[in-house]
């Protein structure tokens, strides 16, 4: 296995990649009209939004893409998906009881940056329709009642501040109290800088809650989606009994730019992708989004979840 010599060439570099690093390859183009193609099929094609797949350049009609859970029909590229869509793709209709839906962040530090944190929050709440970067609740997946937390990258890069930490901690505690399995689907650039040390402490808070969930021998499956990095990766996202990643997801602790600047070394091909992590023995498996529900059902069976008992409770 390749190793890096213990030499640091530059000092004072941050460990964590920014909370708001944009994902490197989600620059999918959206065009209002399908560009002219050779051939005369255009009359069959309804007007609407077309998405160009960044991997294979196929033009994909919005509704087809949605129907395939935002996975390219041709090459399997996983487009970003919102937390709501993901929840709908996993839980049974009307079974999801959301927790703490109205919890919002406050500008505890009165952060005086280029723009204020309060303004940022307001504009992201408007543009995403979300209150913060995670949705939590208890729902039913096939016959299993489970505690489910799903992050959304579109809200401030899925960064973890007090709200993300508190909602997840309450979810984990609820799972511990009710004896429920836990699934957290992560996507995050890391801790939310605007909340300073309050955000760092969410790592300890969520991991501590998981300690007590694990102590009751309850299962926790962590699902890593594009991208999951820094403070989230260095806390609950890495603590699953099982760790599953979506294909092509970028997963790591430090950002690739920081690593390159610090080590002055070329990064190996595919560095910090789900496939790289699988090869290095760091995750259990890679599961495409369309198979996620079936795989979760299957593995929960092995993790001591009594299907019938929970169904009766549910």
């Amino acid at each position, binding site marked *: 296995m*390749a*190793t*890096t010599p*213990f*030499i*640091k060439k530059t000092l*004072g*570099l*941050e*460990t*964590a990649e*920014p*909370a708001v690093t944009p994902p490197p390859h989600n620059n999918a183009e959206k065009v209002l009209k399908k560009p002219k193609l050779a051939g005369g099929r255009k009359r069959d094609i309804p007007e609407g939004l077309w998405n160009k797949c960044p991997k294979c350049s196929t033009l994909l009609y919005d509704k087809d893409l949605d129907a395939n859970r935002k996975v390219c029909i041709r090459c399997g590229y996983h487009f970003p998906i919102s937390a709501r869509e993901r929840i709908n793709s996993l839980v049974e209709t009307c079974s999801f009881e959301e927790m*703490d839906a*109205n*919890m*919002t*962040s*406050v500008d505890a*530090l009165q*952060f*005086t*940056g280029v723009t204020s944190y309060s303004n940022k929050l307001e504009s992201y709440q408007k543009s995403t329709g979300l209150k913060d970067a995670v949705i939590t609740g208890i729902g039913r997946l096939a016959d299993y009642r489970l505690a489910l937390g799903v992050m959304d990258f579109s809200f401030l890069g899925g960064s973890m501040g*007090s*709200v993300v930490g*508190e909602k997840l901690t309450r979810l984990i*505690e609820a799972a511990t*109290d009710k004896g429920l399995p836990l699934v957290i689907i992560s996507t995050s650039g890391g*801790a939310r*800088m605007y909340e*300073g*040390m*309050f955000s*760092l*402490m969410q*790592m*300890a*808070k969520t*991991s*501590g809650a998981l*300690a*007590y969930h694990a*102590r*009751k021998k309850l299962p926790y499956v962590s699902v890593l989606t594009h991208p999951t990095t*820094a403070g989230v990766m*260095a*806390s*609950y*996202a*890495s*603590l699953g009994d099982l760790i599953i990643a979506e294909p092509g997801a970028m997963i790591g*602790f*430090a*950002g690739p730019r920081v690593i390159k600047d610090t080590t002055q070394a070329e*990064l*190996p091909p595919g*560095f*910090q992708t789900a496939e790289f992590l699988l090869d*290095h023995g*760091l995750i259990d498996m890679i599961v495409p989004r369309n198979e996620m529900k079936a795989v979760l059902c299957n593995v929960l069976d092995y993790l001591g979840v009594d299907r019938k008992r929970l169904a009766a409770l549910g």
Partner: protein
Amino acid sequence: MRHQLDFEKPIIELRRKLDELKKHPDAHALGLNLEVEIEQIEKRLEETRCQVYSELTAWQRVQIARHPKRPFVLDYIRGAFTGFVELHGDRLFADDRAMVGGFAQLNGHRVMVIGTQKGRDTKENILRNFGSAHPEGYRKALRLMRLADKFGLPIITLIDTAGAYPGIGAEERHIAEAIAVNLREMMLLEVPIIAAVVGEGGSGGALGIGVADRVLILENAYYSVISPEGCASILWKDRAATAKAAEALKITAKELKAFGLVDAVVPEPLGGAHNDPADAVALLKVQLLIHLDELQKLSSGDRLRMRYQKFRAFGLFQENNAPGSEVAQPEAAPTPAQPA
């Protein structure tokens, strides 16, 4: 030559003047009496020192926390503890010299002491990787903490790191997991744990040995989710905004104490620990003993519950959309399951 910081210039200038006057070769021959002048300058020097060091900005404190002459973790271990028996390795891959640890005695108390170690010169810095640990360091720390837990030794961690090492090997051997596991496992260790940030408290790399019953921080140390440089280049797109970022992030000991994010601020000698390392070591020792004594009076069940609730309570948020609703510092969480 003493390593000097920009904001110390007025002090250095006065010191220089004072030295000149004291050494004035012709003073005696010329029958000049410089005593009055010397006295005045000495007074001004003292006033200036007090003024400069009492009004330090966040960024100035970061510079003191990173001062190359500041006592490092091994200086505290050798100064405040006796009989240090260093233990090596994570039993998996390597001995990370950026993370040191072993048995030691603190005023007769047998403890496990663990911390991140920086180097004083290039050679030592290569050995210590500038105090930035790899996954091996965090796994070694956990190995030693579990050993301490098994044999009932209180744990003292001393933190001084710019952060965990951002490298290729670190990622390949899963530094994120190494830190995450420490956060989870430290929450369940039954022995008392005290963490003290003695210099730099750099993000997850610091927290990775920082889950404790008591978190102390030295007066000029800092503890931050991201380095001021990193924050400046991301939010301001400008490294020159580093001082502003340091201010905005609220990373000084005093601010962290005001937010309740640390339990106690350990005073330093005037001008920083490097001005009187022996005194700095003694000041930390006093605080460690006070907190160790308090923690040992509690049952392990009480300690575990209080440790959980302490971290559980960190976070500021709003619960309802009702206008003017209170910002909630959440109440202590429902008591977690008692340790078996």
